[in-house]
């Protein structure tokens, strides 16, 4: 079954709505929350990986949008500006899933796409601003 990553932005009034429950129950989708920042009364953000049939996926997204949630495709890759990168390794220090690593001699930054949860910690940590997310 196809799997897609979605970046959801919740307006303040919707931040407490149990939307993932409805995605499972009403649309037969399998959501995997990669990250979420939701505080009652404030704008929230959630990155979801959703597995399910195409028509269920489309209906699920339509449901989310009808609830006032802004649905965008989530980042699926990171871009490294190799001109700017000095291979310091600071991004690897904040990458909890271990998607960014330096090779044994420290001469190359290796990105393992499968491990990345697109938390953006590397984007923020990079002192050279050499990392950006791509969609």
């Amino acid at each position, binding site marked *: 079954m196809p799997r897609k990553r979605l970046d959801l932005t919740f307006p303040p009034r919707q931040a407490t709505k149990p939307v993932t429950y409805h995605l499972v129950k009403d649309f037969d989708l399998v959501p995997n929350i990669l990250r979420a920042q939701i505080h009652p009364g404030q704008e929230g953000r959630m990155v979801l990986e959703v597995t399910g049939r195409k028509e269920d996926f489309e209906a699920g997204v339509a449901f989310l949008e009808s609830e006032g949630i802004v649905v965008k495709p989530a980042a699926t890759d990171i871009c490294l500006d190799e001109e*700017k990168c*000095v*291979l*310091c*390794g*600071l*991004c*690897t*220090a*904040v*990458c*909890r899933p*271990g998607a960014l*690593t*330096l090779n044994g*001699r*420290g*001469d*190359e930054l290796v990105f393992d796409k499968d491990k990345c949860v697109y938390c953006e*910690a590397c984007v*923020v*940590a990079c*002192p*050279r*601003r050499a990392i950006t997310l791509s969609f």
Partner: protein
Amino acid sequence: MAKTWDEINERIVSGAAVVLTAEEFAELAAGVGVSEAAARVDVVTTGTFGPMCSSGVMLNFGHSDPPIRMSRITLNDVEAYGGLAAVDTYLGVTQQSSTRGIEYGGAHVIEDLLAGKAVRLRAWSSGTDCYPRTEIDTWVRLQDLNQAYFFNPRNAYQNYAVAVNSSERVLHTYMGTLLPHLGNATYCSAGALSPLLNDPTYRTIGVGSRIFVAGAPGFVAWEGTQHNPNQQRDEHGVPLAPAGTLAVIADMKRASTRFFAAASMTGYGVSAFVGIGVPIPVLDEEIAATLALTDADISATVFDYGVQRRSRPALGQVTYAELRSGTIEVQGKKVPTGPISSRAKAREIAAELKRWIAEERFTLAEPLKPLPQPGEQGVKPLEIRSEEAI
């Protein structure tokens, strides 16, 4: 067999000198033994490339017509020091832009100048009889300046802390983002490639030493600020925590963006990666023995940055080999590690310096004055007290 500085320099000038990087020398010594390696090799090159906040450049702009005695100076909206002579200034790397905050600072201005870009110079003055102009707004490039030289008060720290965070919250520090509950550890040293770890008691590195600074030939100008030779040391005499430092000077016009890179540390501010390389003459077997040390032989102390005090609690020692393996153990917990200092660049600097010596006949300078030695002056804290109490 001992060699003298003169003998080594003669070999460099005649093109006969054997020069290896610290990594190559350690490998050779592991194979043939320290005394054989000492006999075969004349010079070992070291390098480091990490954020070094205590850096900056001295600039002289030349005089406008009519002239101005600049008392407030900005370069691309970054303030430079206005308390020097009319058109001299010092631009520190950590000074932040008044318009772009920590995304652009003194380090970025220096990087732009090194890249050949024009930088907007604005200055203000009250005006005097000899310097009547009160304002100036113009553009300058590195090539237009009379003098432009690095004067970095503290570079090339001899070892550094390993940073962890035992507190409940994420900390944004000059050591990078530290995750709560010992969630990660960061470290900032080139380890076995690092200049002062290869000459731990400053036998060959002192005032007047000829070195590599940001891609330019330069000198050790003085001991660096916070130079602390009295740090605890291991059986090889290598400090276990931040110890010696170097103040360095070099012609900015010969430097390169390959070896100088502006940095913006989120939640902390602007800094700069500075490339420093130091050649070490293999004078005798004692020097060779420390040059042969590897990351497995050199340790750093883990400090808890979760305690926001001058003296942070030390949580043990780890070797650079452990740090580079990706995980260390702190208080029984496995903690993932990440570097801040670029190993790849440190290696590139050591290789470039090796090339200078071998191909360009870059000779070594015996120190004119030694750095303060272990047992001499240390580092003092700043106590908060009243005038009456002093």
